[in-house]
């Protein structure tokens, strides 16, 4: 998805680096990367390190880093000028023979206030949108002690899941969800292990559709303040 914008930005001195937040590592993200054939660095973060280091809580989210290694825009919702899902829904509508949960999920996703051109346009005008170091820190996500606890539980959950100990991992994922309920990467990663559509299961109190409806579409994808 970022390849086309990358071709436009690269001559202007801006490189795109994509990072897959996938506990399943190359097995989960690799086929998607192969299909996209990216010319830019395309990396895999199997430990969700970006969540902890930068405060990323959903995908897609982007961070701008200048020539000197300084962050000039903190994590915010980032679309590359298009939204594949949105375009597909506009063009084809929702397939009537899709599973009911998928239909409901797509309907809900259609309510998101996504403006896919906003972020791409800002990238084309980097200097006008680069923030001062103080603004970057101030705009980054607050981190109260319970978010640190959530991160630690999520990491234990990931470690145990990779060890094949699903029953031991789930209580840690549940604690991460309880302590940091607005962190969608913690939720969606764990839900996806049980059901690719992230629907209700016996293992978690929440699921994608219920939690997005409860939070409201504006909370799921906050428009970047550009």
């Amino acid at each position, binding site marked *: 998805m970022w390849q086309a914008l990358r071709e436009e930005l690269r001559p202007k001195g801006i*490189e795109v680096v994509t990072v897959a937040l996938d506990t399943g590592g190359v097995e989960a993200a690799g086929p998607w990367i192969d299909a996209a054939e990216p010319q830019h660095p395309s990396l895999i973060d199997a430990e969700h390190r970006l969540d902890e280091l930068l405060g990323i809580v959903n995908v897609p*989210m*982007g961070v701008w880093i200048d020539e000197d290694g300084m962050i000039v825009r903190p994590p915010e919702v980032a679309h590359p000028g298009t939204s594949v899902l949105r375009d597909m829904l506009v063009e084809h509508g929702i397939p009537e023979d899709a599973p009911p949960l998928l239909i409901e999920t797509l309907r809900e996703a259609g309510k998101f206030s996504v403006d896919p051109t906003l972020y791409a346009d800002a990238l084309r005008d980097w200097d006008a949108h680069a923030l001062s170091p103080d603004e970057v820190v101030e705009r980054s996500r607050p981190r109260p002690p319970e978010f*640190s606890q959530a991160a630690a539980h999520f*990491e234990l959950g990931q470690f145990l899941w990779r060890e094949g100990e699903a029953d031991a991992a789930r209580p840690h994922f549940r604690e991460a969800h309880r302590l940091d309920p607005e962190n969608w990467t913690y939720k969606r990663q764990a839900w996806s292990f049980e059901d690719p559509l992230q629907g209700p299961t016996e293992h978690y109190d929440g699921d994608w559709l219920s939690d997005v409806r409860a939070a409201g579409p504006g909370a799921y994808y906050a428009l970047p303040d550009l």
Partner: protein
Amino acid sequence: MILKNLEVDPDELAARTGWEVKPEGACKADRCVPLPDGPLQAPELARRLGMALVADEGRGLWALGPESGGRALLSAQMPDLELPDRHGRPFSLRSLRGTRIVMVAWASW
């Protein structure tokens, strides 16, 4: 950061969290927090830096969360980050120094 005992390896701490152990203490960005002499013990480190220390006692594991009490970013300096590509080759963001970067997180899920 996963721990299999409560003694923290300073090199791993720096690689995972950006907190470097120096003579003046644990330092990240322009903040340094004094540490007691001797081996780095997770409970003391957690207390001083506001990091959660969560145990899975059944399996003899602990996880150290990120520092808390402020914002996710202590400073605007991008921490050193090295991640593998699809073929397992490590890539350091530092190798792009001199170039503007937009780093975008996505996922297969």
